[in-house]
């Protein structure tokens, strides 16, 4: 992509939660750019700050959380500074989010058609009501909901969990927004339905140039879908680059460990590589690199904060001792 300006540019974003037990730096200096039509996979383990990054971008961080620093440039406009009024205009319209919990999108007391038609009309007043209904119907069909005509008249509670998620996805796709942030939308779904959703997402990006952030902990899903990948650990993006580059030649010790621990074709009967220990509590992070307690390459240098470096072309890495041997191969 050579577009001079990325659709979305997140710069040094910081979101902290001010809890009773202390300040949790859920997002701690996250930066990335996404161009038109690009799909970025945001991967990381539970609690690494993926969802909070998504919420911060669309301005939905609830107290005790607060975006305390950085910029979110959407077509050049800083969303962190934008007022609530402006955000409401953009949300669901130019910037949409699919939540981990579909009930965050759906209103339990309104019928699905009411909600979908409203969404269409909020975006484009010139559309007739029938046209809006037709579009909603098609959107439901696209995400694999059988007999969409009847389903339009149902209330959210009449759907199964997986179907609710699909309705939420259909609503997000309705207005063909410029940016979609999808937070683990397929985790609760069957592989077949997941395939259908991935197909729709991919089509949307290719046809309308929507930029997509796909949040997941499942590296395999990202492998099939994304162009680029950002790996988060304890509130930071520790490695970022082109999908194939990162998956084939990871350089950050965490990425290396993570990929090594995924069972695959030729691992049968062998012991899997395992990253020792567990994810640290955000309230008790050691000074310096957050991965140091689990890192096989740790030394004294790691007690300082690793800044972003580019040990390989087109790669952003936060580590003092990246695995350059492997990347060189």
């Amino acid at each position, binding site marked *: 992509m050579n577009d001079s300006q990325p659709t979305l540019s997140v710069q040094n974003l910081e979101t902290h939660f001010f809890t009773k037990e202390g300040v949790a730096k859920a997002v701690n200096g996250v930066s990335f750019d996404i161009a038109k039509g690009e799909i970025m996979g945001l991967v990381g383990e539970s609690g690494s700050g993926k969802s909070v990054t998504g919420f911060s971008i669309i301005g939905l961080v609830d107290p005790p959380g607060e975006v305390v620093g950085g910029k979110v440039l959407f077509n050049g406009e800083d969303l962190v500074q934008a007022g609530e009024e402006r955000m409401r205009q953009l949300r669901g319209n130019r910037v949409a989010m699919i939540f981990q919990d579909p009930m965050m999108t759906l209103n339990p007391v309104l019928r699905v058609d009411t909600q979908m038609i409203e969404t269409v009309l909020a975006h484009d007043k010139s559309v007739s009501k029938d046209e809006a209904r037709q579009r909603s119907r098609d959107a439901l069909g696209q995400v694999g909901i059988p007999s969409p005509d009847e389903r339009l008249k149902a209330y959210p509670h009449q759907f199964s969990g997986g179907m609710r998620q699909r309705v939420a996805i259909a609503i997000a796709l309705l207005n063909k927004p410029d940016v979609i942030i999808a937070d683990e939308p397929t985790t609760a779904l069957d592989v*077949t339905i997941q395939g259908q959703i991935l*197909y729709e997402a991919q089509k949307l990006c290719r046809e309308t140039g929507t930029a997509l952030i796909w949040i997941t902990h499942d590296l395999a899903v990202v492998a099939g879908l994304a162009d680029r990948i950002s790996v988060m650990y304890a509130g930071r993006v520790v490695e970022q680059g082109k999908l194939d580059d990162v*998956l084939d030649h990871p350089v950050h010790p965490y990425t290396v460990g993570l990929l090594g621990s995924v069972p695959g074709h030729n691992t049968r009967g062998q012991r899997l590589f395992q990253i020792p220990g567990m994810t640290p509590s955000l309230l008790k992070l050691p000074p310096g690199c957050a991965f140091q307690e689990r890192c096989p390459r740790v030394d004294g240098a790691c007690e300082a904060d690793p800044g972003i470096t580019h040990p390989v072309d087109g790669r952003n890495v936060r580590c003092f001792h990246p695995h350059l041997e492997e990347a060189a191969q």
Partner: protein
Amino acid sequence: MTAMLEVKDLTKNFVKRLDMAGKIAQKLGSSIREEVVHAVDTASFTVDKGEVVGLVGESGCGKSTLGRMIAGILPPTAGQISFKGVEFTSMTQEEGDAAALAIQMIFQDPFASLNPRMRVEEIIGEAPVIHGMTTMQEKANYVGETMERVGLGREYSRRYPHQFSGGQRQRIGIARALAVQPEFLVCDEAIAALDVSIQAQVINLFMDLRTDLDLTYLFISHDLSVVEHISDRLVIMYLGRIVETAPTDELFDKPNHPYTSALLNEVPRLDHRGIDYEPVSGEIPSPLDPPPGCHFHPRCPHAMDRCKAEIPVLREIAPGRLSACHLNDG
């Protein structure tokens, strides 16, 4: 040699009974009917001693239900389960108790599967004391040894479950099962709720226990990579029926049943990059109202007229391989 576990024509139906309003509506001529889910439909397979058999299928296809029946948590609607050659219902009380303890289950949810109001010591030590595997005096030591076996320090035995991480909690669940000295473990999505880096730790633990304690596993999962890594043989389910069983390598190399092929294609894998996704062809059936004949026919690219009417039987297509598809009839 008799198989360690043999399941024959095992069936489980869940009936959703009508409430009062429904009954009245029915009397008044409404088409409301009791809903019957055929969660497991005449499933048959065997597991040999020391084997790891993977049970794979989409969510809702009946994997957990099958696992629960084998673990003795759910009574089957029909069919037989034999353990070491003896059928469950023909066992004496003593044999039954022994079999019940010999087959243990590891659960999916590391939160819900541990009693939040018991200390770890009590969670792990309760059953072995009841069944006389240890005594009240020996309990602390017995629990400590079991905890160390699964990689937990014995100094944590006085803690409550909420004081552990997901991976550690899963280890407690494994320790609880191991404490009654089982021979057969049913692992129902036992690592699905864990983080990737923790999954590897638990998978390794399962493999170590297998060699150390000579365990046999039924490993239920929807994650093909995990199943491929750990299993010797696979059983594939679709909408309550077993459609194919085969040794892992053969199944991945040459799937026989069209559903197996579809599954292998659709499941995301780390080495499948830049996929051009395709829309699902045909309607996705509901387990409440499965299609007649072969359940897979609405989505099967090879479906014939016969498939819509006649249920294909699971039969041997090569040594050690079974499949339920009319295509195999030549």
